[in-house]
């Protein structure tokens, strides 16, 4: 995960300037250098994320405008990186989709594991087939889904001021291009070019979620502890914990596993998030296999 260099860098610099006895160093919380570390040495923290208050996902003030000429983080006088607020707000999800089977490893839907293996991941796609006013609608044809839909979810189709809410009639997974819905008559015409499709149920679920954040993931599953053992999927929402092989070698069995990593900026109703304008959350994921 991202380095938090300031503290260690200061310590090394301090050691370089003082040449006291090592015992004096220890008494003062100092340490004798064991090597001549040249300029450019990479400094990283391997113990900085052992508490929820100290996370290796860190926020920075943005220096690049999202669009040309627009304000950027450094232009603002009301945003702050104190406490890494965006790391503690952004929601992370890791959805496995290997061989058409699904398992939610991280995020809403992972604890407890969803029976369908679906993470709660929002969708925001366009229609690929127009809905015509007064037509009977039994499915929505959409661009490949960038999230999951659970049966019964409310699917909102919007075009300008017109909107209609449909009810998903089955589970729909990442990448699908059709959403079966309970039959209903269209209340307006929704053209493909200007209509949007969202899942208001999932958005509501995620907007109130303050648990599945990047910061919490970083704290619970950091470099030193809490690595997630990723047993192979046996069926949607289930893994084979007794399987001796999690990833077969090249050209045999399942030697490729696919994961969809999602990040969502929740929007708590009625809550102002101005302090997080123009910030950049920096983080990484490490994948590890052994024999």
């Amino acid at each position: 995960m991202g380095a938090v260099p300031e503290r260690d860098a200061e310590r090394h610099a301090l050691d370089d300037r003082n040449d006291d006895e090592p015992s004096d160093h220890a008494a003062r919380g100092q340490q004798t250098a064991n090597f001549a570390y040249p300029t450019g040495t990479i400094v990283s923290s391997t113990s900085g994320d052992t508490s929820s208050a100290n996370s290796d996902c860190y926020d920075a003030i943005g220096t690049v405008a999202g669009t040309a000429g627009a304000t950027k983080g450094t232009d603002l006088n009301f945003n702050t990186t104190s406490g890494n607020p965006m790391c503690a707000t952004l929601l992370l999800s890791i959805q496995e989709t290997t061989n058409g089977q699904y398992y939610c490893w991280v995020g809403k839907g992972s604890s407890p594991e969803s029976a369908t293996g679906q993470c709660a991941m929002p969708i925001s796609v366009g229609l690929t087939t127009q809905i015509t006013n007064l037509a009977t609608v039994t499915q929505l044809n959409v661009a490949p889904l960038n999230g999951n839909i659970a049966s019964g979810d409310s699917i909102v189709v919007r075009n300008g001021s017109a909107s209609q809410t449909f009810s998903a009639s089955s589970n729909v997974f990442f990448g699908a291009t059709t959403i079966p819905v309970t039959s209903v008559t269209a209340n307006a015409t929704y053209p493909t070019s200007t209509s949007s499709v969202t899942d208001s149920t999932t958005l509501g679920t995620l907007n109130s979620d303050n648990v599945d954040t990047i910061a919490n993931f970083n704290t619970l599953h950091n470099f030193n502890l809490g690595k997630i053992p990723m047993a192979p999927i046996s069926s949607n929402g289930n893994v084979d914990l007794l399987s001796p092989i999690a990833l077969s070698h090249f050209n045999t069995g399942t030697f490729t596993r696919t994961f969809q990593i999602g990040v969502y900026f929740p929007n708590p109703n009625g809550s102002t998030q101005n302090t997080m304008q123009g910030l950049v959350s920096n983080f990484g994921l490490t994948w590890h296999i052994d024999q």
Partner: protein
Amino acid sequence: MIGRTTYRALTGPAGRRSSTWRLKKILLSMMAIGGLSFVTATGTFALLTSQEANRGGSISSGTLTMNNTVNAGTTCFSYTGAGTSGNVNPACLALFSSASQNYPGTPATATVTIKNSGSLPASDLGLYMASCTVAATPGAPTPGGGDPCAVGGAQFYVLETDSVGNPTYCWYPDDAAGACSFIADTLNTFAGNLNTIANALDLGAGPVAGATRYFKIGMQLPTNASNTLQGEEALFALTWHMTG
């Protein structure tokens, strides 16, 4: 018979000592090989690992900020400048001043240019007037005692225009395309009903990032204004609120 022969072969009264010694040697050799295998096992079957890190990922949030320019005055910004706090600037220029004194039926107008200077589109723009209070016009010798904020007082409108001032939509009081007209008691109604963020005048979506919307605020005393409105002024502020 078969059992006896077998027994003899195993116990073998003839040459019994040499057979036992040979068996012991075989067993010791096997133990030694087994022991050696145990000792060398960790070196022969090393633990293989592989690791990759998707490092340096970053997620950025956008900005939603507003610029406000009254007539040809100095632009004020929601995000910086004296008095700003939390993306709120309460100190932008006034629309009207008591220096320009109005006669009944003579309109006063001010243009307000609202620019979305952020990188995100505004899903909604709203306008509200937190309060309207009466005061004596500075320098007026004999204030009439009336209240331009009250019923029978000043008339007020909010008109959206294009960039050169042509009317496009009257948001208040008409809520219809085209120009606005002055209607009785409209300052009183606006201040009484559209006075918080929650019940602000809804000016629709936008502007999108980098875009600008133009408004003209109109005010006048009614043509049949009471003499009690002489030497009185209405004090109010208009607040523009943008939501992402």
